[in-house]
Each structure stands twice: as C-alpha cells, then as structure tokens.
C-alpha cells in the first residue's frame, strides 16, 4: 500500500512537471507536496533530466531526403490490393443494391394492381350478365302472370315433374338473411349455362354471346397477363435465386478484398 502510494506520488510528480494533472489530482498533490519534501526533490530531478534531454543538440541529417520523381512514382506504384480496391469497392456497392432489388422484386410481382379489371379475377361474376339475368327473371314473372290471368288456353294441372323449371332450378337452399340479389348470386352459375327452356336458352345464349363479344373487345384494349408468365413462375424464381447467389458471392469476395486492403494500409502506416 505504501509502495503504491509512493509510485502514485512519483507519477503525480512526473505529470505535474508536464502540467498533466487534473484539478482533483492537483489538489491532492499539493497536499502531499506540503507534507513530503522528497516530492519537491523528485520534481527538481525530473525537471533537470528533462532539460538535459532537451538540450541535446539536434543532429543535422547527413543528406536531404527530398524524393525524386522516379522515387515518387515507384513509391506510388500500387500493389495488387490497392490496384483492384476501387473495382471491388464498386462491385460491393452494386451487389448490395442488386441484392436488395432482388428481394424487393418478388413483392412487386405478387401485388395485384387495384386497376385490374374484375373479369381477370378468378372468382368474379360478370356484373353485366348478373344484371341481365335479373331482368330476364322479371320478364319471366310477367309472362307467367299474363298467362295465368288472360290466357286462351285452359289451365293445365301442374305435376311435380312439370313444375316451373325456373322454380325447380332455383331453390332457396336455405339462404337466409341476404337480399334477393345475393340469393341470385348463389344460384347464378346454375341458371345461366343449364337452362333447358328453349326461349330462355336462346335469350341467355344471345346475352352470353353479346357479353363474350364485349369482353373480347375489352380484352383487346387491356390484354390479360400472358399465361406463360404465370406458368413459368418457378423458372423465374430459380433465375432470381441464381442471381442472388452470384451477388452474395461477389459481395463476400469484395468485402474480403476491402478488409485486406484496409489491414495492409494500417499495417504500413
């Protein structure tokens, strides 16, 4: 403990000489200095040593060390690490950006734009056809009403098998709580293609043909996504994986090269 205190006093004496004590140390040291005259002797010795060392005359260099053009050009000739450093640095930046891009790209492809027409969606029902089928139902009801009230023909008994085909084809199936339009939505797929009534079939067929023509004209204006793209998603993914792999390899190599160059620079300075 005493030895440690002595070492600390000596260190403070040395630092005091160089004005390297902070305020607290200086206050403590001043107290020690007043109590221990040996410290002032030590400071005096250190001051003398410093003066002697400082008084050693500077030796004149034996020659001038000015660099000639040749020496300078040879010295600045970069090594292999330095020569390829800019290329690897650029490659690292580009690969990092490319890698980020390859991770963003798949998200951009899977996102469906809001403006895509409804008919491109798999489960959509043509609203136009739906509207027309509603009109058709209304017409049918009117025809039935007319037939019942003012027909010349005698009313025929209706058997279960001869029941109104529309009624048979369009049972409620217990759809509750929805609007009639929603109910129609539920059964619409059954009504339209399988209509056995000749008149209705003709009308619906006409409507379908008309709709198809409309769709065709719209599709010409807004072409549907080519099928080969959707079919070859796996192929594109594979390509993307390969590109990522190449980027990672180049990035790794570039990092190693950059680290080696920096280490070499630090080592020589």
């Amino acid at each position, binding site marked *: 403990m005493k030895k440690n205190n002595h070492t600390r006093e000596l260190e403070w004496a040395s630092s005091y000489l*160089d004005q390297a004590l902070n305020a607290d140390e200086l206050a403590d040291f001043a107290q020690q200095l007043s109590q221990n005259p040996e410290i002032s002797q030590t400071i005096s010795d250190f001051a003398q040593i410093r003066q002697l*060392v400082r008084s050693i005359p500077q030796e004149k260099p034996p020659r001038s*060390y000015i660099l000639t053009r040749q020496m300078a050009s040879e010295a600045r000739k970069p090594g292999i690490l330095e020569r390829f450093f800019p290329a690897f640095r650029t490659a690292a930046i580009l690969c990092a950006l490319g890698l980020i891009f390859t991770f963003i790209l798949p998200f951009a492809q899977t996102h469906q734009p809001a403006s895509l027409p409804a008919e491109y969606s798999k489960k959509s029902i043509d609203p136009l056809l739906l509207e027309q089928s509603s009109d058709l139902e209304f017409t049918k009801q009117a025809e039935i009403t007319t037939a019942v009230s003012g027909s010349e023909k005698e009313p025929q008994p209706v058997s279960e098998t001869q029941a109104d085909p529309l009624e048979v084809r369009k049972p409620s199936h217990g759809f509750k709580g929805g609007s009639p339009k929603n109910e129609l939505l539920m059964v619409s797929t059954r009504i339209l293609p399988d209509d056995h009534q000749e008149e209705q079939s003709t009308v619906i067929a006409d409507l379908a043909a008309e709709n198809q023509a409309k769709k065709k004209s719209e599709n010409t204006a807004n072409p549907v996504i080519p099928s080969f793209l959707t079919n070859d998603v796996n192929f594109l993914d594979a390509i993307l994986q390969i590109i990522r792999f190449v980027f990672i390899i180049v990035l790794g190599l570039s990092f190693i090269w950059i680290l080696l160059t920096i280490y070499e620079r630090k080592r020589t300075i």
Partner: protein
Amino acid sequence: MDLKESKLIMRAIQGNLDAFNQLVVIYQTAVYNTALRIMNDSEAADDITQTAFISAWQHMESFKGDSFKPWILRITINACYDEIRRLRRHPSTPLEPVTEENEENEDAVWLIDPNLQPDEVSLQKDTMAAVAECMGSLPEEYRTVLMLIDVHEFNYQDAADMISKPLGTIKSRLLRARLRMRTCLESKGELYRSQNRTDNKDLS
C-alpha cells in the same frame, strides 16, 4: 498548424510532389533525430528517415489529421520498431554506436554543438555523452516516450495516439524512463554537477 503547412499538406494529398518535398525539408531534421535517438545508429537512422518519407508519400491519401509532424513521427517510430524487431531476429550489427574498432563509442561526438568554446565543449561533451549513454541504455519503449514528451514536447495524449498505447501506459513509461535516467545520471555524477542542478537547488 499554420496556413502554409495546411496548404502544403492538401497539395501533397492531391499528389503534388513539390509540396510534399517542402514538408520533407521542414521535418527531415526532426525525423532523422527521432530515428537516431531510438536506433542509436546514424546509418540506420538515415535509412529509416528515407523509408519513413517514402512511406508517408505512399500513404499521403490516407492522411486524416491536422498536423503533419505527429503523423510522420509515428511512421518513423513504427519504422524504427520494425527495424529493431528485424535486428533482434537477425542480429548482425549492435544497436549501440560503435567505433571502427568495433568498441562501444562513449564519446557521442555526434551530439556536440560545434559552436562552443573548447572548455565548454569539454564540459558539454561529458554531459552530453552521459545523457546520450543513459538514454541509450533505456529500453526503446521508454526512450521513445521520453523523446516524444521531453524532446518533441508532445502532450501525453498525442504521444499515446502516436504509439497507439493507452494514456496510463504513457505516464508509467515516462515515469520509469525518468527514474532510470536519474539513477544513471547520478551514477555518472552528472545530475548534481551541472549548473542546472544548482539552479534547481536554489529553486527548491
């Protein structure tokens, strides 16, 4: 750092050899003497000085500080340490100055100021020889710190940065260097015989 030096540094960084050579002229004495004190060998100091300036020119683009002197001295000290390590691995020449007869040179004539009178020369010759010998006897890490702080008057933090050591190491190395110098100079009778000592006694 004055404006002229900062301009020279900027131009040297841009690859201007003339600007760099002006910096060489300004600092070559300090660099050579630093190498000489660490190596105790004028030939080695000569080689190291040239190597240090070439290395500085090579890495001028990586210069980030605001003063050239600590940077070039750091390069010099590193070059000295490299040379000392090389000599330790392949000991061919002694580190101490030697005469032609391969005896230790205690005169240290290279330290004497040529402008002094004969009696002063004799006095200074003895003192300088003693100081040089005592400095030479220090381990190089103590010698380096003593030189950076007592000769070049760097502060502790600058010295710590230059040799990449903590501040505490610098303080303890400096203390040990001074204590060893005191013991050595006392043994040679130089510490109490000089005029400086009398002054110091009067002061105390």
